[in-house]
């Protein structure tokens, strides 16, 4: 189990970052990619936290908060997954334990995301009372109370995120640790393979999210081209592949520029 002070600090920070998801700023520091890195850094392994966070980011990439739809809480899910992987990776003596812990953490994070969404629904219902309170204050000629009510709402949102994270880490981590210790070597090996398959699944989720028949050729060119290059290039040449990133985005921007020019003409 995590030391209590570490659990509390991670929960407090995760709750704070979670405010960014809906309540405040929305500059996306609440996204799993960022949260995973932050939690990883707090636990002494930023690269691992970042890796798990980016995996959760891809799996949750289609979670769009449209209207009153509450998507799974990616912030708390990523915080839990990153903490779980870093905490559990050395629990099992078998090879592939780090990747196996990653798989377990990600599967458990799905449940944490669902728990977070439930908690947010409860919190939003409570916010309705704050809205009615605000109306009473305005009727009473006290518009300055709006600011105080908003601060109360932000406090409630922070508390919800921190609580979800604390409960998940406090109850979920010991359970996962128990499970990890009991796993036979075959199961550890299977889960370590799963970790890589989850990455593929993440990419498939992204491709599905952006799916468009007309863009099929772009996916095909990207996948086949890089699969070919991957077979012939050495790993330390991977930075060359960054060119693919630039080219892809330049291609996207070009369409926009052309559309704008078309309008001007």
């Amino acid at each position: 189990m995590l030391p209590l002070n570490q659990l509390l600090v991670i929960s407090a920070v995760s709750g704070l970052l979670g405010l960014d998801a809906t309540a405040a700023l929305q500059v996306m520091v609440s996204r799993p990619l960022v949260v995973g890195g932050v939690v990883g850094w707090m636990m002494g392994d930023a690269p691992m936290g970042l890796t798990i966070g980016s995996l959760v980011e891809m799996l949750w990439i289609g979670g769009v908060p449209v209207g009153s739809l509450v998507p799974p809480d990616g912030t708390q899910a990523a915080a839990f997954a990153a903490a779980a992987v870093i905490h559990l990776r050395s629990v099992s003596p078998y090879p592939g334990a780090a990747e196996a812990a990653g798989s377990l953490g990600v599967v458990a994070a799905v449940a944490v995301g669902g728990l977070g969404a439930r908690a947010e629904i409860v919190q939003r219902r409570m916010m309705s009372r704050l809205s009615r309170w605000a109306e009473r204050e305005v009727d009473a000629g006290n518009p300055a109370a709006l600011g105080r009510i908003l601060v109360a709402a932000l406090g409630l949102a922070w508390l919800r995120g921190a609580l979800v994270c604390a409960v998940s880490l406090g109850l979920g981590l010991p359970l996962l640790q128990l499970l990890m210790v009991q796993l036979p070597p075959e199961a550890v090996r299977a889960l370590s393979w799963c970790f890589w398959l989850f990455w593929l699944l993440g990419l498939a989720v992204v491709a599905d999210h952006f799916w468009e028949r007309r863009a099929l050729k772009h996916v095909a060119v990207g996948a086949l081209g890089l699969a070919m290059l991957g077979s012939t290039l050495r790993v330390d040449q991977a930075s060359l592949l960054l060119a693919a990133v630039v080219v892809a985005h330049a291609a996207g921007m070009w369409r926009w520029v052309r559309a704008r020019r078309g309008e001007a003409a």
Partner: protein
Amino acid sequence: MKRLSRRSRVWATLRLLFLQGAWNFERLQNLGFAWCVEGALRELYPDTGERRAALKRHLELFNTHPYMAGYVVGAALRAEAEAPSALQAADAVTALKMGLSPALAAVGDSFFWATLRPAAGMMAVAWLWLAPHPWHLAAPLVFLTAYNLPGLWLRLHSLEMGWQEGDRVALHVAALRLPALTEGMRMAALMLAGALAGALARVAHPATGGGVPLVDNFLFLGAGLGMMLLLRLSVRPLAILLLCVVITLVLAVSFPG
């Protein structure tokens, strides 16, 4: 037309960052909207009764994309400023809010939530895997920069545009050609996803440095295409996640060592 100082407009822009602070199921973003315009209404309506009536009107149901809300706030404040009294502004402001909000929400949801954010995320994931060490750790910065440059630009100038253009602000938003940019970014993100899937079998794990322990990168890619097919058939990602666990367990038990 009543005058509204630049200072009030800047304050309203900053308060917009907390538009969804008290999001609730009954009236959605109403409280955030009311708090956002409260300072400006103080300047527009020195009379307490008028101010109260205007503020109460802004506590009615309101919902749009949080990044596009600046246009609505700016246009609504202009309508308040143009009307001779708070009572006479009521219909114009309500009609403006009701008319602009859903259209801007659709544009914002499609561009920011469904396109720019996933595309920036995909770019950061590609950066994490492909950038030389230790630069790969800058992936969150890549994500935040790629996402926030257009996002913050729009948020900081939208209220001003709404104030200047009034009810014609929709034309300004249309001129941004966001649907065309959306299409371009979707293609770029798809290309990146395909590229990373192709390269994944040959690059090292960003944290452990290990590689894919599977047989062949084309086989690995084939598994990805299989997952993609399942997703197109509306199989939920969670089901595929569990399917992966079951299949690898069967394989690990069938082929020990």
